[in-house]
C-alpha cells in the first residue's frame, strides 16, 4: 500500500488517458473528425489557395491598349487574366468567379491618341478581394495608357502628323528604361517570399486541433454525470491527477491530429513547416493548452449539449480572434492587441518564426513560455473548479 499517492501519478494519468481514448474511439463518429475531416478541410483549402490561388481579372475589349494592359497585369504575378466578351464578363463577375472585370472600348487606343479620355467600365464582384486588387488593375491600365495618351497630347501640341508623333513617342519610350520598383527586405535581400497557403495551413492546423481537442470537454462531463469522477476522487488520486489524466487523452489526440495535418499538407500540397523539432515542441505545447481549455469547459458546463455549443463558440471564436482564419497582419491594431489574449496568435507567431524565417526552438522560446502559461492557468482553473463541483453535496 502506497502511503503517498504521488508515486502513482504517471501510471494513473496513463490509465485515464488510455481509457479515455478507448471510449472516444468506441464512438465511431470521432474517427471521422480525427482522421477524415482535417484532410477534407486541407483539401478544400488546398484547391482554393493552392498553386492556382491568384484572383482572376477579366478583360473585355481588343486593341493595342487593352493587350498592353493585360500583359502588364499578367506581369504583376498577383492576378490571373482572362480575356472574354462583355456579356460573359458581366456574368462571371456577377457570380464572383472573376473578381474584377474591365471593359474597354475596342478603339480605346485611338481615343487616347485623339487626346480624349477613355471610359473604362470597372466591374467589381461582391467579394472582399475585389477591393484589394482594384488598385493593381487600375495601375496596369494607367501604365498602358501612358504611351497612347502622350501621343495624343503631343500631336495636339505640335500639330505634327499623327504617324510621325506615334513613331517618335514609341521610339522614345523604347529608349527610356522603365522605372523599376524593387521590393527588398531590411538588410537588402530579395523579398520574394511565398506567402499564402503556408500561413493558411498553419491557421487551419491550430483551428482544427484546438476545436477537436476542445470536444474533450464532453468526455469530462460524461465522467462527471456517470458519477465516475467523484468515485475517482474517493480513490487515492488528487484532483490535479484527474484533470491531467482526463486531459491527457485529448492531448494525445490533438498532438496526433496536428502531426497528421502537417504530414498530409506537406505531402499533398508541399507546405514547408520548418525545423521539425521546433514544430513538434510547438504543437505539443499548443495541444496541451487546448486540452487544458477542454478540461476547463468540462468542469464548468453541466451537460453535453451546453458543452457542444460552448465548444464551437470558443473553438471558432478564439480561432478567428487569434488570426487562424485571417492573417494577423490584416488586423487593425486594436484587434491585434485583442488577438494576443488567445493562445492561437502566439502559436501562429511561432509558426511564422519557424516556417518563414527558419527560426529554431530558441527563437520561439518566448511564445512557448506564453503557451505553457496558458496551459497551466487553464489546467489550474479546471482543477479548482472540478474540486468545487465534485465535493459539493
Amino acid at each position: 500500500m502506497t502511503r503517498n499517492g504521488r508515486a502513482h501519478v504517471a501510471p494513473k494519468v496513463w490509465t485515464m488517458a488510455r481509457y479515455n481514448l478507448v471510449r472516444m474511439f468506441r464512438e465511431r463518429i470521432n474517427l471521422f473528425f480525427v482522421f477524415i475531416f482535417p484532410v477534407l478541410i486541407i483539401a478544400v483549402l488546398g484547391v482554393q489557395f493552392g498553386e492556382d490561388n491568384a484572383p482572376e481579372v477579366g478583360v473585355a475589349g481588343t486593341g493595342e491598349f487593352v493587350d498592353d494592359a493585360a500583359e502588364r497585369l499578367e506581369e504583376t504575378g498577383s492576378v490571373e487574366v482572362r480575356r472574354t466578351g462583355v456579356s460573359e464578363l458581366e456574368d462571371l463577375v456577377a457570380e464572383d468567379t472573376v473578381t474584377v472585370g474591365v471593359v474597354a472600348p475596342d478603339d480605346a487606343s485611338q481615343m487616347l491618341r485623339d487626346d480624349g479620355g477613355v471610359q473604362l467600365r470597372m466591374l467589381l464582384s461582391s467579394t472582399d478581394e475585389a477591393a484589394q486588387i482594384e488598385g493593381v488593375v487600375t495601375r496596369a491600365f494607367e501604365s498602358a495608357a501612358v504611351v497612347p495618351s502622350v501621343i495624343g497630347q503631343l500631336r495636339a501640341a505640335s500639330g505634327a502628323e499623327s504617324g510621325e508623333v506615334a513613331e517618335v513617342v514609341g521610339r522614345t519610350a523604347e529608349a527610356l528604361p522603365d522605372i523599376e520598383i524593387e521590393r527588398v527586405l531590411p538588410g537588402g535581400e530579395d523579398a520574394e517570399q511565398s506567402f499564402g497557403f503556408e500561413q493558411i495551413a498553419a491557421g487551419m492546423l491550430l483551428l482544427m486541433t484546438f476545436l477537436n481537442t476542445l470536444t474533450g470537454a464532453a468526455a469530462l462531463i460524461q465522467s462527471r454525470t456517470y458519477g465516475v469522477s467523484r468515485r475517482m476522487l474517493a480513490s487515492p488520486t488528487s484532483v490535479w491527477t484527474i484533470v491531467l489524466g482526463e486531459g491527457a487523452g485529448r492531448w494525445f489526440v490533438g498532438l496526433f491530429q496536428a502531426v497528421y495535418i502537417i504530414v498530409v499538407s506537406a505531402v499533398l500540397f508541399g507546405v514547408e513547416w520548418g525545423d521539425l523539432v521546433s514544430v513538434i515542441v510547438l504543437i505539443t505545447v499548443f495541444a496541451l493548452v487546448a486540452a487544458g481549455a477542454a478540461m476547463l469547459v468540462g468542469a464548468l458546463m453541466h451537460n453535453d449539449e451546453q458543452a457542444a455549443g460552448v465548444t464551437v463558440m470558443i473553438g471558432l471564436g478564439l480561432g478567428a480572434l487569434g488570426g487562424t482564419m485571417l492573417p494577423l497582419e490584416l488586423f487593425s491594431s486594436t484587434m491585434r492587441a485583442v488577438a494576443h489574449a488567445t493562445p492561437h496568435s502566439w502559436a501562429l507567431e511561432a509558426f511564422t518564426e519557424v516556417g518563414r524565417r527558419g527560426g529554431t526552438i530558441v527563437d520561439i522560446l518566448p511564445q512557448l513560455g506564453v503557451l505553457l502559461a496558458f496551459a497551466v492557468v487553464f489546467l489550474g482553473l479546471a482543477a479548482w473548479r472540478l474540486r468545487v463541483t465534485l465535493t459539493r453535496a
Partner: protein
Amino acid sequence: MIAAVRTITVKDMRQRLRDKSFFLVGIVTPFVLAIIFDLVFGGLGGDELEVRAGVVDADQSEISGRLYEGVSAIDGEGGVTIVTFDGDSGTGPDGTSDGELDVRSAIDEQGLDAVIVIPEGFGADVTSGGGQAPRLRVVADPDRPIQVGIVESIADGLVTDIERSRLAAGAGQQLGTSTEPALQEADLDLHREWPGGEGLDTGSRMLAGMVVMFVFFTVSFGVTTLLSEKETGTMRRLLAAPIRRDAILAAKGIVSYVLGALATVILMVAGAVLMDADWGPWLGVSALVLAAVLTAVALMAVVAGIAKTAEGASGVQAIVAVGLAMLGGSWFPVASEGILGVLSQLTPHYWFLEGLDSLAGADSGSVVLPHVAALVAIAVVVGVPATVLLRRRLTP
C-alpha cells in the same frame, strides 16, 4: 389528426424551449461568432486596413522631390499614414548606403509596414534616357505583405506619372514642342459597377454564414427527438394512442421548422438592429429564409431516418452541418468553378448566401426567385425520401 399534431407540437415546443441548448446553440453561439467575425473580418473590404509607410529621398533631385511630395501627400488618405524622413538629416537613413540598416530600425521602432527609398542618382537615371534603369526601392516588413502591396501600388501610381511626363518631355523635345508636365488624370475615366450587386458587407455575410450553418443544428434537435423518444419509451405511448402516425411525423417536422425559422429570424433581426446589416427587400429575405430552413429540416430528417440511435444521428448531423457549411461558403468563399464549385452549388448554404448577396441593395425581392427555387428543389429531392425513411422508423 389536427388536434393530435397540435398537441404533440405544443409538447415538443415546450420541451425544446425549456432546454437551454436551443438558445445556446441556436442563437447565442452563432451571434457571438458573427460579432467576433465581424470584428476580425469587418475592416477588410473597406478602407480600414491601416498602412504605415515611410518615404526617404536620398537623391534630392527635382524628380525625386516630386515623388517625395507625391508620397507625402497621400498621408491620411484611406487609412494610410506616411512618415517622412529627411535624406540629409542624421535622424533619417543614410543616403550613401541607401540606409538599409536605419530603415530596418525605422520599421521596427516606428512600426512601419514599408519604406519607399528614393536612392541617390534616381533623378539622373530617370532623365538620362539610357544606361542604368532607375530603381525605386520598397523596403518591406516581410510580415506585412498586404500592406507592403498597398505601398507598392502607391509608388507604382506615382512612377507611372513620372514615366508619363518623362516620355512627354523626351518625345516633345524631338518634335520641337515643350509640353507642360501636367498630370492628365482624365486619360482614363474609370466607371465602377457591381454587376452582381455590391453584395453584403463582410460582417453581414459572416453572420449569414453562421446563421445558415447553425440552423442545421437547431433543426436537428427537433428531428432527433423522434429517435430519443424511441429510446425513452415514450414513442410506444404515442404509437399506442389513437392518432395517425403521420401526425407524429408532422408534429416533429413542424417543431423543427418553427424552431429553425425562429432562430434564423431572431438572428437576422438582431444583425439588422445591432450590426446594421442591410438584408434588402424583406419579402425576398423571408422567402429565402423559409426555403432554407425547409432544406435544413429535410437534410437533418434524412440523417435521422438512417441513423440507428439519437447519439449516432447527432454525430452524423454535425458532420453534415459542418461539411455542407464549409462547402457552401459559410466559412469562407468557395470557388464557383471546378468540382468544388459544382459541389458547392449542391448545398443549401450556397443558395442562401448567394440569394442574400443579390438581395442586398436590390430593388425587388424577385431577384431571389432562382435561389428560392433551388432551395425548394433541394428540399423536395431530400425531403421525400426522408419522409419515407422516418415513417418506417415509427415503430415501438
